[in-house]
């Protein structure tokens, strides 16, 4: 590690806690949201510095991009002025501060005392041939620990249902007051978004990338289309939307359960077609995850819906 790397890391490690402090201390929600997006970008840099490009990609696309857009959108529903929170008593603050400091110091001490590099990278590399994909992260996600990923997708689909129950979607009304620029941007970026998502998905078998990253990029493009009023927010009543939502989970379950019929284990891909099956799961997952992420995004509030507390709408 050169001196320049060290300086960069120290700056990163200093900026992150300061950003978190400003997010929590900021009085108005709009600045908190902007700072949160900045924190997402800095975190992505930190993951890249830790040689975790997959997490860096997800953090940049989901942590900074999608979550930022979601929080901004939420502000338009509740009104930016709704940020005044109840003051917390001094005793509570001091108590929480002591607790958090103790946990933080404990973690730091534990990490410093680790005598040898931990992790399973060595074991994964040794058995990569069994996984039928060339990239270790994809091998873990879809082959060695495919069961975890399968359950994760089920959780995501359920989360999308929950999000729509709470925010049933909106009817875009009238002309876009910001036109024509967002519409032009959507038109220019949509083909590029599809290209980049396909590229990330395709590279996932051998390099950083994969279904989650591709889906996050696609969902970002979808949100842009909704905001530019080219597309309406996807509606749960549409058969196509429902099919896209469950496609990834359904195909994953089918591929996982099929080996049972031939006497093999759950999720034991037949080795002749394992790579094709894994790629087909990734394609189906990309579609479903992108729709799930888009379902979290309710669009703009209908007229008169804004600046009301969510509970009052029922």
């Amino acid at each position, binding site marked *: 590690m050169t001196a320049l790397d060290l300086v960069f890391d120290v700056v990163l490690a200093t900026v992150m806690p300061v950003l978190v402090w400003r997010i929590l201390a900021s009085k108005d929600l709009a600045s908190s949201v902007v700072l949160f997006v900045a924190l997402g970008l800095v975190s992505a840099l930190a993951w890249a510095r830790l040689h975790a490009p997959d997490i860096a990609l997800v953090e940049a696309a989901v942590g900074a991009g999608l979550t930022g857009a979601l929080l901004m959108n939420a502000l338009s529903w509740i009104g930016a002025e709704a940020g005044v929170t109840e003051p917390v008593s001094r005793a509570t603050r001091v108590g929480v501060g002591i607790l958090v400091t103790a946990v933080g110091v404990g973690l730091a001490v534990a990490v410093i005392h680790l005598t040898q590099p931990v992790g399973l990278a060595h074991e994964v590399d040794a058995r990569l041939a069994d996984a039928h994909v060339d990239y270790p992260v994809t091998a873990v996600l879809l082959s060695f620990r495919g069961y975890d990923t399968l359950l994760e997708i089920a959780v995501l689909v359920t989360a999308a249902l929950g999000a729509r129950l709470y925010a049933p979607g909106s009817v875009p009304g009238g002309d876009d*007051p910001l036109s024509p620029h967002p519409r032009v*941007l959507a038109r220019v970026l949509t083909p590029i978004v599809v290209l980049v998502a396909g590229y990330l998905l395709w590279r996932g078998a051998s390099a950083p990338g994969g279904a989650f990253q591709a889906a996050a990029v696609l969902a970002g493009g979808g949100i842009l289309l909704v905001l530019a009023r080219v597309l309406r927010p996807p509606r749960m009543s549409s058969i196509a939307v429902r099919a896209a939502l469950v496609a990834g989970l359904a195909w994953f379950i089918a591929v996982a359960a099929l080996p049972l019929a031939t006497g093999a284990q759950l999720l034991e891909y037949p080795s002749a077609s394992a790579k094709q099956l894994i790629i087909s799961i990734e394609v189906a997952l990309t579609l479903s995850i992108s729709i799930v992420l888009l379902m979290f995004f309710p669009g703009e509030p209908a007229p008169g819906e804004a600046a009301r507390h969510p509970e009052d709408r029922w």
Partner: protein
Amino acid sequence: MTVIDVLATALWVVGAVFFVAGTVGLLRFPDVYTRLHALTKPDNVGLGFIVSGLAIQSSELAVALKVIAVWVLLLVVNAVSCQVIARATWNRGIRPWSRR
């Protein structure tokens, strides 16, 4: 250090100067419109210099084209986001600052 490295470093330094100038403008300028100007215009030029440095230093043509593509995308997005924020501000009834 090769000639290419020296040239690339010089380009990065020039790019960084534009970013610093833009940041100073963002902190010092009086209203949304002037700050937008300070934020989007120097960033376009600054990133152009940084990308040029990366492109001439990269060993593969594909890598060079990718970083140039990043710059072109930033040009498009910066131009649009600047206009959108300015228009949203105008629609809210905020008028440009002027020295009286």
